[in-house]
């Protein structure tokens, strides 16, 4: 059945294939356009470099009027990522705009990896280390980068 959300997700997918942003990819799962798998490659010149981080994106019929639920499946040590993989990012919550598409969502998460916001922590250890002990922070991040090869 075609609904506005499904129609729009087909468009999002088409655009992601035709004009893929650097370092991210995503596609609907085989039998359900409302659930996507995605990968974000760790941005260069950050401790996340070389990591391949898997995510799931779950949409509702209210997309794009409401944001999807995005979660890391790979373990990510980051000030704004919860232990369950949930992501604390304003555009996925109170600053969501229907003009964002999957491509914009993934590139925003990619920039969040480079530029954490330690003032709004989802992982207080990561936030504290990021602010007070950058070397230890980078060590913990690199450990999850290595873990991401195995997952």
């Amino acid at each position, binding site marked *: 059945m075609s609904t506005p959300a499904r129609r729009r997700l087909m468009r999002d997918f088409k*655009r992601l294939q035709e004009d893929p942003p650097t370092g991210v990819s995503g596609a609907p799962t085989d039998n359900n356009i409302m659930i996507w798998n995605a990968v974000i490659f760790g941005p260069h010149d950050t401790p996340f470099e070389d990591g391949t981080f898997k995510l799931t994106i779950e949409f509702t019929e209210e997309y794009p009027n409401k944001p999807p639920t995005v979660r890391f499946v790979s373990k990510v040590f980051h000030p704004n990522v919860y232990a369950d993989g949930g992501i604390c990012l304003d555009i996925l919550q109170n600053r969501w*705009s229907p003009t964002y598409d999957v491509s914009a969502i993934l590139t925003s998460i990619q920039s969040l990896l480079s530029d954490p916001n330690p003032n709004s922590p989802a992982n207080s250890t990561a936030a504290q280390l990021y602010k007070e002990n950058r070397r230890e922070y980078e060590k913990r991040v690199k450990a999850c980068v290595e873990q991401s090869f195995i997952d």
Partner: protein
Amino acid sequence: MESVEQDGEQVNRDDLILQQQREIEREISDSTPLVSDQLPLTCLTAEYDGDAVFTAKIQTLASKYKYMRRTRPDGNCFFRAFAYSYLEWLISNKAAYDKFRSIAETSKDKLIQLGFPSFTLEDFHGTFMEVINRVNPHNPGGVEKNQNELHTIFNEQGYSDYVIVYLRLMTSGKLQEDAEFYQHFIEGDMTIEEFRHQEVEPMFKESDHIHIIALSSALGVGVRVEYLDRAEGGTVKAHDFPEGAQPMVFLIYRPGHYDILYPN
């Protein structure tokens, strides 16, 4: 963006809040249509349980307005009420309809120039134009057929909400265009940019004067709002946006909510 420690583990509180919010929304959507049929204003009296101030004010309003339409209280009520009321007016004003249609047609390029992403904007603009075309007063069938069509469209969530998204983007574009002027309306130290992204573009965010002024100026549409509140004195205060404009859209505001009015 809140988190709490629980047994040493960070719990994702956002998810819990979101879940509760969705339940409340479901209750509202099950009990109220997006836009109701025409109702007499006296239907409001019951909500105020015989309160003397409100009862007197409702009487005053009922002498000036023959009907009202309720809109669903989902934070989009101003935009939904505005769009419905204005399109309904255009159905019986062919020249104004033609003018509006061409403003709507060219608005997309203007928004793209202002920096809105064309890929997603096209989707909303396409639906917006489809709705406008479906109630074209030049279509065969006359005013009544168009009114029924309008009512059907606005109670279909997909169409109804896309119209609102597009109007929100037009409002946001106007704020960006005249940022210097609108900055004065913003309380605190939020920038216009932040305000647009946080209070205008997201769906379900309630509207304030600034939204009404920006949208009514962007489209050149006069809006009269009647304020039904607890303020003393039997008179109901009305405000016209933009100031001095001839109103085509009539709304009633009760703290937190807008509905549509039909003048005698």
